[in-house]
């Protein structure tokens, strides 16, 4: 299986599979967020009993973390190799080839998302699961209230929305590109996959933005 690391298509396969896995996680994350709008109690139950510091949640977190790390490492490797492959002398005239903006800026968009992740992980995950696991003072079991506390600050809302927009562009190219790399594409499916990618990225990002605004404006826990 060394071809996975040694060949260009193998490396791309790793990048695309990890990316698709992260899209699945985002869909899961979104469904969790939506619960917040309806009931704080259910949200806290899910966060503490179903996720929390249980062994399966820890395994899940580790697998997810691995997915993120692999995706980042291969993004760096591929970008560096591609930069070298471009040659030492660059074109003096700016490229006028019409291509999708996001397809040329996947790495930059990714960097923005990682920066956001640092803030996000510190604000949420560190306060809940991490502190619980390592017995650090001030662990929060009231996840819903924590989210409300954090997202009621305007700068947090703005930072989140900016990151979501970067995510939208990243997913827009990433979704069809990943399926293209695993070989699932042809002239007919190209249009379908691009449209599906558009739909999936819009669903995820719009969902995140709606929940973030709902929390900021106080429209949560509506079923109580």
């Amino acid at each position, binding site marked *: 299986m060394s071809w996975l690391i040694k060949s260009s298509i193998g490396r*791309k396969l790793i990048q695309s599979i990890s990316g698709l896995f992260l899209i699945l996680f985002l869909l899961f994350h979104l469904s969790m967020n939506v619960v917040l709008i309806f009931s704080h109690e259910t949200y806290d139950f899910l966060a503490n009993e179903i996720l929390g510091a249980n062994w399966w949640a820890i395994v899940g977190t580790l697998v997810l973390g691995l997915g993120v790390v692999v995706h980042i490492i291969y993004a760096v490797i591929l970008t560096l190799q591609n930069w070298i*492959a471009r*040659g030492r002398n660059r*074109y003096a005239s700016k*490229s006028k*080839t019409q*291509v999708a903006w996001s397809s040329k800026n996947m790495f930059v968009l990714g960097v923005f998302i990682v920066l956001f992740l640092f803030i996000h992980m510190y604000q949420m995950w560190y306060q809940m699961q991490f502190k619980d696991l390592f017995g650090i003072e001030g662990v929060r079991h009231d996840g819903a209230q924590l989210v409300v506390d954090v997202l009621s600050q305007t700068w947090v809302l703005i930072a989140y929305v900016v990151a979501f927009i970067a995510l939208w562009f990243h997913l827009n190219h990433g979704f069809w590109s990943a399926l*293209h790399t695993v*070989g699932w594409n*042809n002239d007919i499916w190209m249009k379908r996959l691009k449209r599906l990618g558009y739909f999936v990225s819009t669903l995820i990002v719009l969902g995140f933005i709606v929940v973030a605004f709902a929390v900021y404006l106080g429209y949560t826990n509506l079923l109580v």
Partner: protein
Amino acid sequence: MDKDINIKVKVWRQNGPKEKGRFETYALKNISQGSSFLEMLDILNEQLINEGKIPVAFDHDCREGICGMCSLYINGHPHGPDGEITTCQLHMRSFNDGDTITIEPWRSAGFPIIKDLVVDRTAFEKIMQAGGYVSVNTGGIPDANAIPIPRDKAELAMDAAACIGCGACVAACKNGSAMLFVAAKVSQLALLPQGKPEAARRAKSMVAKMDELGFGNCTNTGACEVECPKNISISNIARLNREFLKAKFKD
């Protein structure tokens, strides 16, 4: 109507592979818009020779868009601003009086510069030698109608076979990737029964050669497809990925 125009050309000059290159700007007067881009360069070279200077080296051969020799990165486009043609099919009517045209060689680690606008594209020959053929273990001549080929397959194979190996895909790619070229060459054979028996070996060895020669990893920006003078579709890249992964997972 075609007019005569006065232009300036900003050309990359480099004496040899190891020398440092630089741009030089030359003025050209009364160039007919009816002349081709390469004829304009011929006029430039005649002018340079008459001035006792060294003419600009550039690749060209058939001058009818089929040999794949001409290259040139013109004003931010491989093969110039006009679509679906090679540089030799580009005409001066794509430019206006007073324009300054920037002419550069293909720039990619896989295509080192030999002189001025000429780059070394033997990397493509090496990739072809790695497996871009059907082995002829000659027996009797088979009957042409004995092997039925579905029409859509035949069309796709012919579309892929339109690739002339000019290297515009690599020149356009921000990753210096040769995937469109390799994909076309793998596809044109993998789609046909004659190429099927060796399809797995072909995909593996051509990709291995491509990686070895320092071409980049494709990130599906699609720039290659936009600039390809022969309209090779990036669907071929998906097919190459499929052929390669299938072959590797079978091992």
